[in-house]
């Protein structure tokens, strides 16, 4: 690579990521076996959903451009932004992506594209107003890292499987209502079997959702990690996150005296809050990401790898 400093791999993170993917695979294998055992016609559903997923996968950059109202900008229109992204792309060892600007004051940035050769990086007007140059570089490095890690592909596969399950769930529901599917079998038997498949589908769908969400959270940490490698400045990504996430708005205006006596009277103990909600979010808590980045910075400043 081009002078990019490699950090020690976050082995726990990588293990958990692979474990999640493995669990996802196991889950769908079991599901497929149940369906196969019941001689269920899966092919045509797979074809429809697969086609949709492929379309989404190959058209993702254009879809997002249309959907978000971003505009592609050339090197002549935005020389500074292009120079910055080009420099980072060279450091990351990937081709120059397309660059787009979204005309909103909400500070944000995103990347899309099925592989590094077909990537798009977009920033909003708001993020350029609010961040310093180093912070913007750090955010762009994070987005380039998403592209380099091929997170779009991972997400597309995960979403495809979950979408397929939800498709089946709906179909089975209707077939239960109207008693469809395979009249060649004994009716009573068949009804019970469909009921069973329906229950399995719901469970698979739910667990699948949780696993995909966990996976995207790990990809987010992964992009923070390799993004910090690309720009060499985890602290700037941390402070950028602090600025754009609006975490400061959480700091209250209330006086502590009003709390009177503490925890004993709270219905939900403080230690429990924030536990369950984190299972259902696509992004890890900003505070956790900032903490990891700060740790990375510390490792870096002490020369540890």
């Amino acid at each position, binding site marked *: 690579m081009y002078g990019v400093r490699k950090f020690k791999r976050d082995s726990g993170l990588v293990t*958990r990521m692979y474990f999640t993917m493995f669990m996802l695979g196991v889950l769908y294998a079991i599901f497929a076996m149940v369906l196969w055992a019941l001689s269920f016609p899966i092919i045509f559903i797979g074809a429809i959903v697969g086609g949709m997923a492929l379309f989404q996968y190959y058209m993702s950059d254009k879809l997002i451009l249309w959907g978000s109202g971003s505009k592609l900008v050339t090197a002549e229109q935005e020389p500074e932004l292009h120079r910055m992204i080009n420099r980072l792309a060279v450091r990351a060892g990937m081709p120059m992506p397309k660059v787009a600007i979204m005309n909103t004051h909400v500070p944000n940035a995103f990347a899309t594209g099925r592989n590094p050769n077909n990537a798009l990086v977009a920033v909003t007007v708001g993020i350029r107003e609010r961040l310093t140059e180093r912070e913007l570089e750090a955010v762009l490095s994070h987005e380039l890292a998403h592209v380099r890690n091929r997170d779009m592909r991972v997400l597309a596969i995960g979403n495809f499987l979950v979408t397929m399950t939800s498709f089946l769930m709906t179909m089975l529901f209707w077939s239960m209502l109207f008693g469809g599917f395979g009249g060649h079998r004994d009716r009573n038997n068949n009804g019970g079997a469909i009921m069973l498949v329906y229950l399995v589908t719901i469970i698979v769908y739910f667990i699948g959702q949780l696993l995909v969400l966990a996976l995207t959270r790990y990809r987010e940490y992964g992009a923070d990690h390799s993004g910090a490698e690309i720009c060499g400045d985890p602290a700037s990504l941390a402070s950028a996150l602090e600025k754009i996430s609006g975490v*400061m708005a*959480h700091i209250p205006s209330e006086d502590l005296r009003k709390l009177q006596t503490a925890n004993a009277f709270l219905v939900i103990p403080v230690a429990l809050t924030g536990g369950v909600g984190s299972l259902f979010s696509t992004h890890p808590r900003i505070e956790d990401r900032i903490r990891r980045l700060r740790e990375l910075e510390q490792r870096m400043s002490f020369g540890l790898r």
Partner: protein
Amino acid sequence: MVLARLFGKRPPDRTDWSVMSTIIRAEQRLMARGEISPSRRAGLIFRNDESLPFLRDLKQELDPILYTGPGATKTAFELHDEPESGMRWIVMEDGDFSDLVSSVYTVGNAMGANGASGNLLAAVFQLYFTGAVDDSSFRSGLRTYWIYRYDLKSFYPFVPTGDAVGDRDRPTEVSLSSRARRQGMSIERNMEEWRGLWGIPF
């Protein structure tokens, strides 16, 4: 177990001292970097309750603990009442920061041992900060408070910009909190719990 490892980790067991003592090392390290200088003062705020003997005779109880008793750190103190809120402050003063921290801990511990653990609200330490809070602003000798909440067993920074409730310098607090956390200080993660204490008497 697998799920716990997969989706996050459980908080470790914490005691008042294991958390409160993290400010000592953070202060030393930040002082070595020239970013922090200690003030000599700290305080403890609690809901006063004269029906508890220890709180009724507080001055006599504290004298041996902080000053006259064997092994006492010779920490000076004074009491400060807030009639409107029913709260009372013990303001302590000591030139040695680690003595000051252990005095505050000892007093809180003694109150807890005498039936007043539910009355304890917070311990507050004062430090002066010098440095850049982000790219644009440099602060020199900024007065900052570090609040230890007994119910949460964690610290957070508090930088009031005035005496009116709600006036605080949030960006500086966020910046300070990450500096202190980097130096090993135990900082409350949930910012919604960072309630202020306006009108600190020191």
